[in-house]
């Protein structure tokens, strides 16, 4: 009785905050190194990119919002490392205002080797307009973009010489979207132009994409930090995903325990007093 009164005085919430802080900090300082099991969805995405013929054109819709970016960061970084490692031509554009800033942070981790900007990769600027823009890009890229992120007119970029519509690409990859962009790509690129769609997505969007993956509309996708860790393991480049997996497991276990405790407590309170 005295114990409950003391707990109530401190406040249950503050105890929970403290427990969450501890369960996150301890594995951060002393990593456990829990194994990562690669899911079929991540494997599918990885294998699809791995099997793309050399010189294939890959479209990337970079849709990162700073607010939710940490969830997709690991997968996005691993995805970029993977894509730039392979001899693929990359055309990337932004559909969020935060995108260019976040991408420049990630590009520091990508080994460019002897890649030449304009010849095998191009960064197009931010464009507003949501699904309508994705649809417009599928039919006429020059109708949306006049120049790249550095102000070079599109017609002066060698890579863009033979690229202007969805059919010029082998695949479209949606990166770090906080919801919606994957469905836009399916509706505006996959259905009318038959261009496969892949996604490096956040945990919130992932369950929504599973039916599309089962139906074959999406070739594969990663699931938040966990998916990022899986992708890092696949490409053999450890990063934020693998580092955060332990923390995620530890905090999730605490939450499960708290749910059990709260339910037991509720049932105890509901039980008629003798």
């Amino acid at each position, binding site marked *: 009785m005295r114990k409950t009164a003391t707990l109530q005085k401190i406040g249950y*919430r*503050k105890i929970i*905050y403290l427990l*969450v*802080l501890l369960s*996150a*900090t301890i594995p*951060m*300082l002393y990593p456990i190194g829990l194994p990562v099991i690669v899911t079929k969805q991540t494997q599918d995405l990885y294998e699809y990119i791995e099997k793309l013929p050399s010189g294939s054109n890959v479209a990337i819709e970079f849709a990162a919002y*700073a*607010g*939710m970016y*940490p*969830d997709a*960061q690991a997968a996005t970084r691993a995805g970029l490392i993977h894509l730039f490692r392979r001899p693929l031509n990359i055309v990337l554009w932004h559909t969020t*205002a*935060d995108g*260019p*800033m976040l991408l420049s942070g990630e590009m520091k981790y990508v080994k460019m080797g002897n890649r030449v900007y304009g010849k095998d990769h191009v960064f197009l*600027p*931010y*464009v*507003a307009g*949501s*699904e*309508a823009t994705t*649809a417009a890009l599928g039919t006429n890229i020059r109708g949306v*973009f*006049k*120049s790249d992120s550095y*102000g070079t007119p599109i017609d002066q970029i060698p890579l863009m010489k033979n690229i202007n519509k969805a059919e010029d690409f082998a695949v479209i990859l949606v990166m770090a979207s906080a919801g919606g962009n994957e*469905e836009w790509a*399916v*509706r*505006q690129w*996959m*259905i*009318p132009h038959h261009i496969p769609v892949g996604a490096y997505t*956040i*945990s*919130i969007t*992932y*369950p929504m994409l599973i*039916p*599309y993956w*089962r*139906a*074959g*509309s999406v070739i594969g996708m990663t699931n*938040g*930090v*966990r998916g990022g860790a899986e992708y890092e393991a696949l490409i053999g480049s450890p990063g*934020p995903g693998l*580092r*955060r997996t332990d*923390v*995620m497991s530890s*905090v*999730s276990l605490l*939450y499960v325990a708290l749910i059990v405790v709260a339910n037991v407590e509720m049932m105890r309170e509901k039980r008629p007093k003798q």
Partner: protein
Amino acid sequence: MDYATMLGETVTVLFIIMCYTYLIKENVLFKFVQATYVGLGIGHGLVMVVGYLTSSTFPAIAAGNISLILPLAMGLLLFGRLKRQYFWVYRYPLALLVGAGLGLQIMGMLKASLIDQMISTMSISLTPNLAGFNSVIIVFFVIASMTYFLFTVRGKEPAGSAMNPLLSTMMKIGQYVLMGAIGAGFAASFLGRLAVFMDVLERVVYFIPRMLGLM
């Protein structure tokens, strides 16, 4: 680490700590961070949009593509929302946006979100493994969930008579399936927020080692 990065890292960590003081009590430090974050976000977004207009839209109009004036004017009309007396002006571009958006969506939605997913759901694989079991259970759960929304049948039940036990059981299962799906959605949302929390916590925990050049 250069001085600009050090300053940036220090301000970030200070802001994170100031923000989390909210957990103890709402205070001026938290409010300051909140206002700064909103201000920075809007400022950055505005700069990007103005940048797009000045680099793409205005040069295109100046080059003779006068058809772009129409969407630009429509965009400006959206600001009518800010003043009550001009609110009606805002409705025109909004109607256009909703109409065009729906038109675009429906085109792909019928195939991607309905036909393809129905085919995928109904493709039962009768193999004695987990995939086969899953394919059967998914069909059953989809039917049960849909039964939950059969309000017409429920409404036609004569007063005082019991509902068909099979239908009632299916509805109950459907209810649990829906609750499970919503719970899974909430859990996914929790994981997303947890990732954001981990990111900010990492910045705080690794701050000193980073400043000392140990990381």
